[in-house]
């Protein structure tokens, strides 16, 4: 049987093509990709770069859970979830989620569900480097 999910956490540049090519399938007409990139401003502050840290073994497990629940829940065929760690510059890719499905509606729903869930449960942390220092996002120590 074809591999249906492709999960990756890497400190190297992520590839939209790799994710697209993984999900491409003769039985599918709808492919939706979410590509999360680093933007130059957040809440009025100038961002210089981001740094991502991960509890990699557990993050992979959580990403697999999300991937399989996507395929079940939404009648999607294949899904790729790739997340970058380490330093990530402006316009670089932090995360890619690609989903293929017979029909486009399921692909859109599965892709949006996957990124929403990833942000809730996958043990990855983001540090913002601003002009005046660096801060862990969401963390109030």
């Amino acid at each position, binding site marked *: 049987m074809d591999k249906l999910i492709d999960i990756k956490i890497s400190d190297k540049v992520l590839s939209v093509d790799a994710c697209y090519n993984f999900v491409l399938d003769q039985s599918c007409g709808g492919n939706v990709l979410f590509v999360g990139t680093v933007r130059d401003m957040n809440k009025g502050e100038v961002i210089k770069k981001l740094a991502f840290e991960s*509890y990699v073994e*557990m993050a992979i*497990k959580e990403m697999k859970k999300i991937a399989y629940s996507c395929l079940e829940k939404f009648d999607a065929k294949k899904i790729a979830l790739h997340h970058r760690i380490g330093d990530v510059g402006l316009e670089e890719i932090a995360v890619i989620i690609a989903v293929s499905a017979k029909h486009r509606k399921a692909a859109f729903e599965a892709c949006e569900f996957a990124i929403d869930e*990833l942000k809730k449960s*996958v043990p990855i*942390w983001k540090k913002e480097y601003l002009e005046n220092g660096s801060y*862990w996002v969401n963390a*109030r120590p």
Partner: protein
Amino acid sequence: MKVKCFGIVKEIVNQEILEIDGNVKISTVQELRTFLSKQFPEMSNINLCMVAVNQSYADDHTVISSKDEIAIIPPVAGG
């Protein structure tokens, strides 16, 4: 007992793996939370963190021992 630390927690305890002396009695996640918030006053908001046991999210009643892989999971921010 060894506890993996990430993100803001790693910075607070100033190490990736926190070693807790075997003489300290910690047998549940709740007891670990109590120990950490006493030991590290900066972790007063420890309740915002999750605790993972053997790479799965655990609740406060989960029983833990030094054989488990334990990690403090501050609020995640992937994507």
